[in-house]
């Protein structure tokens, strides 16, 4: 600030949105307001990979593996790709890691800024729509290979249940009721979740489900990292309930991950889903 007095634009009533305020006052701080030369930049920056989320009665779980890749190289082994957006919601990122982390930071400030200025919390749909707008603003960069595809999930205090939102690069959003996956390993993780998900999971079962799905993603996708037993690096897991969100402590995840890996020693393809046959008898 050259003038010591707070600029007049700060004192003007009007928007409660931090990103709208940035557009008017400091557009250079916005991740999406940069013009790039033509050409693809896809191979220049690390990419984050697989994120999974699932709901259980009373809450939801979001988990992400720890790997970031740059082409065939593992760029980082312990990247954190799941973040709390505010007290009752989490956001996980896949795509260009640098831009995605910046977008998450902006999204976090956006939610907190609204809450402080208005004195009330945005509805969960309102939060999901704000994230849509941020992704849409990034479309130009997405077309040059720097796509960001987050996943948003939160506990809806009005409905009393966990909800998950998936996005595409144009900012289109869709709600998923049970589980959702994004990133390069998402196809394999989704297959695992399809077979293992049930409506009546407990919190710890839901966390285990997420670990199993990530294991299957890492099994078949080279860009997704499985539990790193030698370095003791395990997936990041957030649980959100009516009491708010929390990141599971590392030792808790390590214990569950060790069990999952231990069971895979006997059966590398993981738990078996029942195969219903005519006659009513399920065969295992």
């Amino acid at each position: 600030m050259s003038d010591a007095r707070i600029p007049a634009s700060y004192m003007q009533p009007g928007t409660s949105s931090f990103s709208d305020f940035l557009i008017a006052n400091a557009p250079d701080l916005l991740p999406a307001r940069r013009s790039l030369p033509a050409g693809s930049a896809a191979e220049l920056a690390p990419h984050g990979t697989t994120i999974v989320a699932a709901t259980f009665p009373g809450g939801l779980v979001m988990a992400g593996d720890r790997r970031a890749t740059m082409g065939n190289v593992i760029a980082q082994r312990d990247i954190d790709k799941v973040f709390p957006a505010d007290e009752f919601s989490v956001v996980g990122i896949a795509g260009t890691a640098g831009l995605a982390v910046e977008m998450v930071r902006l999204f976090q400030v956006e939610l907190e800024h609204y809450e402080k200025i208005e004195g009330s919390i945005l509805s969960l749909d309102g939060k999901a729509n704000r994230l849509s707008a941020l992704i849409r603003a990034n479309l130009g960069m997405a077309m040059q290979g720097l796509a960001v595809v987050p996943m948003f999930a939160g506990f809806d205090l009005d409905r009393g249940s966990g909800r998950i939102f998936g996005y595409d690069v144009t900012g289109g959003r869709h709600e998923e009721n049970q589980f959702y996956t994004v990133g390069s390993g998402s196809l394999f993780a989704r297959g695992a979740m399809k077979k293992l998900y049930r409506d009546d999971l407990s919190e710890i079962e839901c966390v285990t489900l997420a670990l199993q799905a990530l294991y299957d993603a890492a099994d078949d996708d080279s860009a997704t990292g499985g539990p790193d037993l030698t370095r003791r690096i395990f997936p990041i897991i957030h649980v959100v309930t009516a009491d708010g969100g929390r990141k599971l402590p590392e030792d808790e995840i390590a214990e569950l991950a060790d069990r999952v890996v231990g069971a895979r020693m006997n059966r590398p393809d993981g738990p078996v889903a029942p195969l219903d046959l005519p006659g009513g008898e399920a065969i295992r």
Partner: protein
Amino acid sequence: MSMPFYVSPEQLMKDRADFARKGIARGRSLVAVQYVDGVLFVTENPSQALHKVSEIYDRIAFAAVGRYNEFENLRIAGVRLADMRGYSYDRRDVTGRGLANAYAQTLGTIFSSGGEKPYEVEILVAEVGGNVDEDTIYRLTYEGRVADEHGYAVMGGDAETVASYLAEHYTAGASLGDALAVAVASLGHATEGGQTTDRVIPVTDLEVAVLDRLRSQPRKFARIRPARIEELLGDRGPSEHAAAPEGGPDSPSSTPPHITPSTDDPADPTDQVSGDVEPLEDPESGEPPVAPPL
């Protein structure tokens, strides 16, 4: 034909200060008290929606008395300033001192510029640190003066009476319950015509918030709900609402309690006289000014 009159700068500033002081003195008092785990804010505010105390950033809170629309503007500017700095640098780089300086410059510029009405506000910027010694409370007046307060800070309304009560009863390192009890009692303390009265303020008329360093979230600001206030204060005997219908700066009081039309008393918000000396006289010689030659 109107004559251009000379008004000395001293008189001009004094008139502006009187104007601001009277606006502030119409509202009720607000106290901030340091306790063992942070900073406690208490004020008498029957409105549950229009807050006088609010969150600015992780460890910083804002409290104000005076004209609502003016301090609301300052509050929003503070939130934007803090969020902008935290976003472009880091969350740790947002400090109460930086914010207090920005407010001081803003209020000072507005006060001394001829074109704008001075703000009728007094504000507190408080920041909670890792321990009691690192907690800071800055008190800013309408003319942009900053004071670094220790222990407790009082502003608005009958600040002197409340401050004298706190000076007597405040103890450093008190628990939340004890600090709240002293703060609420100080707000109910009043002096009228040499007689002191103590009123028990109903819980529903209190606005209470804390900056609590023990909160597990990074955001340390929390409002304390009436049920919890009741629990902390315990039984205090029968309570009574504020006596006279309060005339906030936005709604001038319809029934002024007492009128003293001949003297200027900054503590009396209802007097109609401003300044000890008639503005048209020379403040030093007492002579009427001579109009400058045309």
